[in-house]
C-alpha cells in the first residue's frame, strides 16, 4: 500500500515538475497582447460554453464581466478585454 502511495506521489510530482518547467519556458506568444476575442475563447470554455456576444447589451456585459472576474478569478486585464470584445461584437 505504501509503495502504491509512493508511486502515485512520484507520478504527481513528475507531472507537476514538467508542468512547472513548461510554464517557465520562453514563449513567443505575448500574453499581454492577447486580444479580447482570444481570451473569450480560452477562458469562458474552462467552465461553460463560450457565450454569444449578441445575448446581452453593453451594460449587461459589463455586469457579467465583473461577476465572472469574481467567480472565475479572471485577472483584471482578462475581464476588461473580454468585456470590450463582447461589447464590440454584440
Amino acid at each position, binding site marked *: 500500500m505504501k509503495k502504491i502511495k509512493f508511486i502515485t506521489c512520484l507520478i504527481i510530482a513528475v507531472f507537476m515538475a514538467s508542468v*512547472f518547467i*513548461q*510554464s517557465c519556458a520562453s514563449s513567443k506568444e505575448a500574453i499581454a497582447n492577447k486580444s479580447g476575442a482570444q481570451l473569450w475563447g480560452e477562458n469562458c470554455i474552462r*467552465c461553460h*460554453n463560450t457565450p454569444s456576444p449578441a445575448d446581452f447589451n453593453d*451594460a449587461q456585459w*459589463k455586469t457579467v464581466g*465583473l461577476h465572472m472576474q469574481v467567480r472565475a478569478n479572471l*485577472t483584471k*486585464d482578462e475581464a476588461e478585454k473580454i468585456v470590450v470584445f463582447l461589447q464590440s461584437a454584440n
Partner: protein
Amino acid sequence: MIAFGASFAQDTIQTQLDVITSEIQSLKKEDKTHFMLRGFAQFGLDATHDNINFNMTSFNPVLLWRQGDRFLFESELEMEFINNELDIHLGFANASYVVSKGLIVRVGKFLIPFGTFGEKFHPSWVNKFSTTPLGVGHDGIAPSADIGIEIRGGLQLGKSKLNYSIYGVNGPGIKDGTDEPEEAGMLSFENSTDNNNNKAVGSRIGFLPFANSSLEIGASGYYAMPGSEESPFEGDTLNEDLNYKEVSALLTAFDLSYVKIISPLKSIIDIKGQYSLSTVSKATYFNPEDTMRYSFTNNSSAYYAQLAFRPALADNAFLKNIELVGRYSAYTTPEGSLWESKQSQIAVGLNYWFTWRTVLKASYQITTIEKEGAPGEHSGHGGTTGNVFSLYFAVGL
C-alpha cells in the same frame, strides 16, 4: 423674415442637441448602476425499474447588482420542489469590491471555494449531468456556502496564471447524536450562526501553467473547530463528561480541469476531477439505542472524474451540438460510525446543446452501495444497486 426663420431653426437644433446630450448623460448614469436578473433552471424525468417520475429539480434566480466598475452584489435563491412542498434557500448573498489588480474583498454568504465543483460547475446549465457527483453538494463532505469574509483574485505570472482565495467563515458544527444518534460525528455545514468562538479558515490556490489557460490544477484546505463550548449532555450525569470542544476538522481537496480544442478532430475535450478528504479528530459518542459509548476514526473521502467530448467545430449543424459525457464518482464515510457507507457511481450521458446555455441532457446512472449505515447499526450492510435513466432540460437564464 429669413433671419427669424434661421434663428428659429437654430433654436430647434439647439433644443434637439440638448435632448440628445441629456439622453447620453442619462445612459451614462444608468451604466454606473446596473441590475440583472439571471440564474438557471432544470426540469425533466427520472426512470427507474419501478417508476417514472417528472422532476422540477431546480429554479435558481440570481440577482446581480453592479455599482460602477468595482462593486458587485450578487445573490441566489435556490428553489426546489421536495415532498410536494416548495423549498427555498438563500444559496448566496454577498458583496464584492475590487480593491486593486488581483485583489477582491468579498463579504456575506458566498460559495466556498473548496475544490471547484461547488463554486463553478454546480449550475444546472454548466453541470454536464442532471445530478452532482457523489459526496459533492449540499449533503457532501465539504461546505457549499457559508457566511464570512474572503479575499481572492487572479494574477498573471509570466505565461502562467495563479488564482487564490483565502477566507474565514462561521464554520461547521458537529452532530453530537442528541437529536439524530445515527449521525453522531458528522459535520453539519447548514448553520447560519456559529456555535462557538472559533472561525473556520480555508484557502484554495489554482495554478494555470499553460498560456492558453487549458489546464488548471488546484489545492484546497479548510480547518475548523466544530464543537460547542458546553457539553451537549449537560445535566445528564451519565454522559456530561462527553464534550466536543476540542474536536478539530481538517478538509483537503485537489482538483483538476483540462479543456482543449482538438483541431484534427474538430472537437473539444473537457476533463474534470476532484478528490476531497475530511479528517475529524477522534471523539467518543453515545448511542441511546444500546446505551453504549463508541468511537471511530472519523475520515471521509469523495472523488470524481469526468470526461466530455463534443465535436463543436464539425461542419454538420446537428453533430456540432452533440456532447458525449462520462463520470465516475465514489464516496466513503467513516467505518464504525452509524452513518458508515461506501458508494460508487458510473454515469454516461448524451447532451444536445440548443444554444450555449440551453441543453437537453440524457443520461444513464448506475449507483452501487457496498455499505450503507442505518440507525442502530455499527456496521454496514450492502449489496444494493440503483440504475436510473434521466432526461433533463437545463437553461441558463
